[in-house]
């Protein structure tokens, strides 16, 4: 019998480390998504953050390619701004304001895990609402040998 696939909200840093760090668990996670072993969830904001980062670092064309890469991932779920707006007021004070849309997007999508290397998130009260783990933890939960980095 096929085991249940994990559904993970992937913070922006997962996509960035996956491309910038070849020996990273983030890269393994993206491989697993491409093999349909993990169901990925992002928010509209994740795409904006990634576009900004890649534009600053590598130029606009590469930033657009990266966004196209993400939106064409198999089974990707994107939580829209509108959906976040409807629920955001319920969670004010749980995390810093700028992290709120991500927290709410993950809750709306009913993910199994929120995956991030951002310690501001891992050390926040968000863990009362979601299971927050680092990239390495997710790889190990899938039963794959992890890379030596946390991210």
């Amino acid at each position: 019998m096929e085991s249940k696939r994990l559904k993970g909200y992937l913070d922006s840093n997962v996509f960035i480390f996956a491309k910038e760090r070849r020996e990273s668990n983030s890269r393994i996670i993206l491989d697993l998504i491409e093999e349909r072993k993990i169901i990925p969830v992002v928010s509209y904001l994740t795409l904006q953050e990634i576009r900004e980062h890649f534009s600053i670092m590598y130029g606009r064309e590469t930033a657009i390619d990266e966004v196209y890469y993400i939106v064409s991932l198999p089974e990707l779920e994107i939580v829209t701004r509108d959906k976040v707006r409807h629920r955001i007021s319920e969670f004010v004070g749980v995390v810093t304001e700028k992290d709120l849309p991500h927290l709410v997007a993950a809750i709306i999508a009913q993910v199994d895990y929120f995956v991030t290397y951002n310690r501001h998130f891992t050390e926040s009260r968000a863990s009362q609402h979601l299971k927050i783990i680092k990239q390495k933890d997710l790889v190990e939960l899938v039963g794959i040998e992890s890379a030596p980095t946390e991210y």
Partner: protein
Amino acid sequence: METTTLPLRLPKKLLAEVDLLVKAGLYETRSEAIRDSIRRLIEVKKLLLEPHRYYRIRVEEALTESKKKPLDPDETIDELRKIREELWRREKAYFGI
């Protein structure tokens, strides 16, 4: 670049179309026109079949060619926090909080 010669059967009408492109100056030779058409075919089909793989390769190649060295992981997180802060500053009013 190393090349391989392939025996190729083409309908005369299609070859005449290729020759027109050469005569018009778009390509130096028939071979160049056919190579370009194969490259374009591959790009289109890759996009249709597995777009994420196609874009992944494009981004990875761009990063390999980039002269910019990635930030270290903690710097990346700090930089992302700044981006998030700026996006939130622009968006906060929309959420009404």
